[in-house]
């Protein structure tokens, strides 16, 4: 992710975790085959920014990070 070096790695981990949890295509828990999601981090970040009506840059900014830190539901924002 194009994260500025001074961003502490805690934020970097949070962002990575957030995108993998909510913007990776989640396989159906009742099916055997689990599809590996090949989308890049930028693409996932753009999807997240689009979903929340943020500026879609694929770059991490404060507003995007602030949204990621809010308590939320654990269901992905993109379809199963």
């Amino acid at each position, binding site marked *: 992710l194009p994260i500025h070096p001074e961003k502490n790695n805690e934020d970097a981990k949070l962002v990575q975790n957030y995108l993998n*949890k909510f913007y990776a295509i989640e396989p159906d828990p009742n099916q055997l085959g689990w599809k590996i999601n090949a989308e890049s981090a930028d693409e996932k970040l753009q999807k997240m920014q689009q*979903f929340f*009506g943020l500026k879609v840059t694929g770059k991490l900014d404060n507003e995007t990070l602030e949204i990621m830190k809010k*308590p*939320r*539901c*654990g*269901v992905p*924002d993109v379809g199963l």
Partner: protein
Amino acid sequence: YGFTLPGWKKTKLTYRIMNYTPDLSKEDVDKAVEKAFKVWSAVTPLIFTRILKGVADIMIAFGTKVHGHCPRYFDGPLGVLAHAFPPGRGLGGDVHFDEDEDWTTGSSGFNLFLVAAHEFGHSLGLSHSNDPRALMFPNYAYISPSEFPLSPDDISGIQSIYGSSQNTPDKRPTTPTSPKICGSQMSFDAITTLRQEVIFLKGRHLWRVYPDNSEAERELISAFWPNLTPSIEAAYENTKDQILLFKGNKFWVISGYQVLLGYPKNINTLGFPKGVKKVDAAVCNKSTGKTDFFIGDKYWRFDENSQSMEKGYPRLTVDEFPGISQKVDAVFQQKGLFYFFHGSKQWEFDPIAKKVIREMKSNIWFNC
């Protein structure tokens, strides 16, 4: 809204509460869950029945981190609060709450009823909505329990899967979902003047009152400002024919009913220190061009001309406004006098004589 078809193939669904949280009594959990199902049965033909043993369509459980055979994990306090699975066999329809959260029946911590109603939306086949006013919006937002939590977006979503409750008597609450303005306990989130009008805000609604003839028009806030979230916390009209609306550490500037571009901004751009997280109420004194921001038992003074916070603040509210000793929910100025609101009461205050003139019910401005 979004959904994952085909949804349940039946309208009679069962649910079972597998375990409880130590944060609440069992009765509170049972009630919150039952009330959360009623939200969805009110707008669809669906009927929910609780069973105490065996496998239900919707199995409800509290867990932490890696829990049971669930492929999703919880993450400790905050972060992920709960999750659910779309209709189907096995895990399908099931709902899990993160026991590491602080579950409540009120506005502190996380309100179990609101989170359960959201998760049951998933159990019925809804996915997340990107409408910030929707219950199915991914991020948690507290809504006053007196409000019906479903937005038009939620209702359209669930009825696109199951149809409306037309073939069964409409079970939506008969009372209007907006608070009863003439109720004896009526309180307000925020109040501001706007030219000749006084605008009262509460939850998702606003009332525009023309004091001279105390006519009032009720509207949805979203009808005026589609992108604003409900439950505005403070509002005031400045000296430039604009109103400012506050929620959490954000504020919007509205000119002629249009939200100005570049908003919301953070309130520390007004000069509040980082530690200030929200504003309870605000009013601009038209005679002095100074705006008072009320937070807890103190107030800050902002100079509208220089657009800067004055030095030497915050100060105790009661020192400048004797008799106004409780937290200020809302305040506005009318014909030179201030009206301070707390709960279901208001106090008319003369800023020149610096004294309370009279105490009244909060809703005397409406033709109750």
